[in-house]
Every structure is written in structure tokens, then in C-alpha cells.
């Protein structure tokens, strides 16, 4: 059984990023693999997840989405614990995705700001073994690359949700979680829509 943990799925979902776990779970379902989504929304659940990550548990994935200013303020009490968790995730090479305002918990310089960009972008990534580009909606003034990878953690400013529009990244994550990618009619239908989205948005 694969397990996808989502931190504060209600609060860190301003731009729909919690659906990254839904998309990942659905892809497992389409390939006949059992997967479950687990919400992490209390301190004890954060501590339990930290324990799992530190024990290098395989078959798990962690998603942390972008939250509103109000949500980020409300979660400030958990800042230290979430930072510890992300550090452990990076160290243990646990696959994860961190989006938008949640990058403040990752060890990246999210302090610098530039002019806000609100547009679809095709971002390039030079991370070895990962796809070379990704499509998503950039709505940020953070001076960071739209997508990068540290250890097995996808650090991105792209909404969409990221996984829905970038199936090749899902395939990489599936492999990291110890499963084999396989095709299905449902996946082919989804891939067909994604192809059209790339055609429209990448040239928009």
C-alpha cells in the first residue's frame, strides 16, 4: 500500500495544490496499485510523519501546498516542526512536493521578491533523472526558479495542480515510491487532455 501524506489539506489548498495527492492516488488506482491519502493536520500527526520519514519508510510521498496569508499565519505555531520534517524528508530522500508559500519551510531562499507574475509557464529543470520541463500556472512574486528538485523533493511555484498537468513527473514519483508505471485507458484519456492543455497553454 502506497501512502500519500498531505499537510493541512484544507488550509494549504488556496490554489488547489492539495489535489496533487488526489492525482497521484488516482494514477496508482489506474495502474492497479493500492494507495491511500492521509491528512496530516495536527502536531501529533506531524510528529508521527516525522518518525516515519526518519525511519526511511518506503512507499510514502508528502505533499505541502500553497496557503493564503491567513493560513500561513495560523500555521506559524508549527513552523519549526514542519521545517524539521522537510529537513528529514530531504535527508532521507523521501519523495515530496512543496508548492508556493510552503517553500518558506524548505531550505530555500524564499525571501527575495520581484514583480509578480501571473501566467502559464513552461519551466525548465536541470535535475538529473527528472523530466526537463513542467507546465503550470505561476502566480508569485518570489524570486525562485518555478521548478527545481532537491534530493527527491520537487520545489515549485507552479499551481495546476502540478501533477495533473505533468504526468511525466508523476511517473518519476511512482518509480521512486517503488512501483512500476503501467498504462490504462483512464490514464490515456487523461494524457490526451494534458496534451491539449500543453498545446494551448505552452503556446499561449
Amino acid at each position, binding site marked *: 500500500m502506497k501512502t500519500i501524506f498531505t499537510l493541512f489539506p484544507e488550509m494549504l489548498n488556496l*490554489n*488547489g495544490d492539495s489535489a496533487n495527492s488526489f492525482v497521484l492516488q488516482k494514477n496508482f488506482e489506474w495502474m492497479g496499485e493500492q494507495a491511500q491519502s492521509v491528512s496530516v493536520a495536527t502536531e501529533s500527526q506531524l510528529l508521527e510523519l516525522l518518525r516515519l520519514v526518519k525511519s526511511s519508510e518506503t512507499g510514502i510521498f508528502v505533499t505541502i501546498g500553497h496557503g*493564503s496569508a491567513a493560513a500561513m499565519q495560523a500555521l506559524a505555531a508549527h513552523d519549526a516542526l514542519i521545517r524539521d520534517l522537510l529537513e528529514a524528508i530531504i535527508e532521507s530522500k523521501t519523495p515530496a512536493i512543496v508548492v508556493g508559500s510552503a517553500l518558506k519551510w524548505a531550505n530555500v531562499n524564499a525571501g527575495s521578491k520581484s514583480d509578480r507574475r*501571473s501566467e502559464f509557464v513552461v519551466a525548465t529543470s536541470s535535475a538529473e533523472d527528472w523530466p526537463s520541463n513542467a507546465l503550470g*500556472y505561476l502566480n508569485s512574486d518570489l524570486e525562485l526558479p518555478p521548478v527545481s528538485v532537491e534530493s527527491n523533493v520537487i520545489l515549485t511555484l507552479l499551481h495546476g*495542480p502540478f501533477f495533473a498537468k505533468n504526468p511525466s513527473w508523476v511517473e518519476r514519483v511512482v518509480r521512486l515510491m517503488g512501483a512500476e508505471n503501467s498504462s490504462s485507458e483512464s490514464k490515456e484519456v487523461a494524457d490526451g*487532455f*494534458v496534451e491539449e*492543455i500543453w498545446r494551448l497553454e505552452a503556446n499561449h
Partner: protein
Amino acid sequence: MIRYWPALLVGRIARILIRLVRKGGGSALPGLILSKIAPGILYRVLGSFPKGLVIVTGSAGKSTTTKMLVNIVREHGVAVFTNPSTANILQGFYSTIIERANWSGKISGQVAILEMDEAHAEELSRKIAPLQVTVLNVMEDQLDRFVDPALVRADLALVAQRASGDVLLNADDQNTLLIANEVRGVQPRFFGVASKVLGAQGRGLQNAPTYLPDLPRPQTSSEVSRLDGVRAELSGAWGKTDFDLPSRGVHFALDAVAAFESARAFLGEGFDLQLATKALGEVPPVFARGEMVQVNGEDVEFILVQNPGSMQLNLDNLVGEPEQLLFAIGRDVHDPSWLWTVDYSNLKHVDVCTGFNAYEAALVLHYNDVPMGLVTDDLERAATAFFAMPKPKTGHKTVVFSADAMRRMRRALGFWSPEEVER
């Protein structure tokens, strides 16, 4: 004194020329031209109404609330100038001026009651202090423009602070209660929905969470005390009244009570309960808010969705299982990510999925196991296929669309007269 007739002439010629080329078009560009060559005309026009300017703003419900408020005030014999429901940004106001102003740049009427987009209300109220402001709600809406609900709340607080008369606020949105704390010099009046009515709604009113300890609900002057289908009852210290809403849904009941209380504030002692009830009961559905139209001789329900909140409320309020449904998400949805925050479990199937964002919509529906028929970004082809389907055995055809898809579809169907969007 500045003479505005040359600028109006240029705007009117532009409007005529555009309409010759493009049937049903021609309202946006002339407004833009007028705003560039005579920006001051807007403030002159809106500052010229003897009873002042009334603003209705917030994330959702502006059109319906404004229409209801205008109906009530007009029923009391007051001449009202208002804006078409599709023209609630500054450029739209300029377009309305081209249509309505006389050559000296004036529009007849005793009061201007306008719905205003949140950001444009802030910009406009900097130059003209409104007499009265009604703030309906703050939702997670148009994040590509507004970025964060807290920024929207800050803009709306500024608008409310600038009212020289009454400020009307939603008692059931924590955001508007925070705004109430920022209003100085005026005691806000509150409208709302009784907890027993709200409790019967699965997902409430879809306001943006503040994640702060809840502020206590203030005493309302008027509230929705009962809701049964389209039948709504409003009550307060003044008594109670009931009438039929133009469409089903608690959000329409909220619009009605907001309009009712706004009218009570504006009309003061001249307010007549019977006239207000009559006016509310006679409000037809606002353009595409649960509006029933005839296409090829059959009834079609048009439902406009503009943000996660309105999408959720409208999907939750679908009656039964619509036998034939077209789902269209257009270019106005710049960032379709929010489509993934909606629960589609009430949407059992979609016959046609279309609009510029057809494939974005199709992807989210596919992931949510909603069976679909035709998927195409060619809206005309989609409309032709959908309206060629035989009449449903039960109920009527249903169209759920975003604003851009709505405009394009109406034009494709020949509903191009600008009067169709007039109040």
C-alpha cells in the same frame, strides 16, 4: 468647465463602427477609448446624482443584490441609474456612460446604485465618496488578480470606510466582521442568514476562511429566517415578510436580505414593507444566474459560475440529475487551478465540455469520474452539438458556464442585444 461632448462623440462613433463589424460586440473598446480621452467624465457623472452613490460590492452576489435593490428603490418612486450586470469595472462604467449620458456628460436619475468589482470599487471610491456601501462577502476568487483573500478584504475595508452614510455588512462572513472593526464614524448595519437556515446547507456560504478565532455574530437588522425552495422569509425588529426568490439557493436568499436591508437604510422613513416585498417578488433572474431562456423553442437553464464558491453553490443546488448538461469554462478563468478545489460529486455526467479551458475542465472532471460526451474548445461546435440533442425526457437542458463562455455562447445563439443585459 470641461466639455465632454467631443469625447462622447468619439466613443459613440467607435461603438457604432464596432457593432457594424461585430454583432453583439462593441461595449468594451469604446469604454476604453473614453477612459483614455476623458477620464474625468466618470467622476463628473457619478458625482452628479442628488441622492449620491450607492455601492454594492464583494466577491459574489453583486449582480443579483444590485438588481433587487434597484427594483425596491424604483418601486418607491426614486429614479435610479444603475450599471448593466456585465459592466462592473471602470471600463464598463465608461461604456455605460457612452450609452446613457447626454452630450453635457450627465445621466438622469436621483441616485446611482452600482455593483462594483472589489478592486475597482476601491479605486473609484478614492475619488468619489459613496453615500452607502454594501459588502456582501469575501471568497477565494480570481487569485490571478487578487492573489490572496486578505488583500481583497483590505480593499473592501477601504471602500466601507469611505461611506458617508450607512455601511451594510454580512453578519455571517468573518471577513466582513473584520471589516466592521475597521469602519469608523458609522455604526454598520448587518444582514444575514439564520443559523437554522444556514445549517441546512451542506457547505455554507463558501466565504474565505480567516483562520482567526471566530468573532461573535452581531445582531442583524434583517435576516433570512426561513427558506423553502425559492420561498424565502425575511425577519427583523421591523416584522417579517416572505416572497419568491428569482432562483433557488441560499446565496440568492442572502442577496435578497442584503438588498432589503440596503433599501431600508437608503430609504429611511420612506421605506414601505409592502412595496419592498412586491419588488423583491417581481425580480426576474439576473442574466445567467439560474436564468431560464428559450433556445430553439425549448427551455434552457443558464447558470453562471465565476469562482470556487459560486461553482460549488451552483453544483450543490442542481435539481435532481440534469439529463443534458453543457459545461463551459472560458478564457476568463486565467488560472484554472481552482477547478480542483470544487467537489463534483453532484455532477453525474456532462454531455458537452467546452470553452477555451475545455481540456482543463475535462481533465478535472475525468479525475473525478464524471462521464463526458463531446470535449472541444470550439464553443460554436459544442453549442451546435448540444442544442441539436433531442429534448430531454424530463426537465430541461442545463448550461453551466463561466463569464467568457457565457458571452460567446449567447452571441453564438443570437442573444446579442445589449438590452438583454440591462436591468
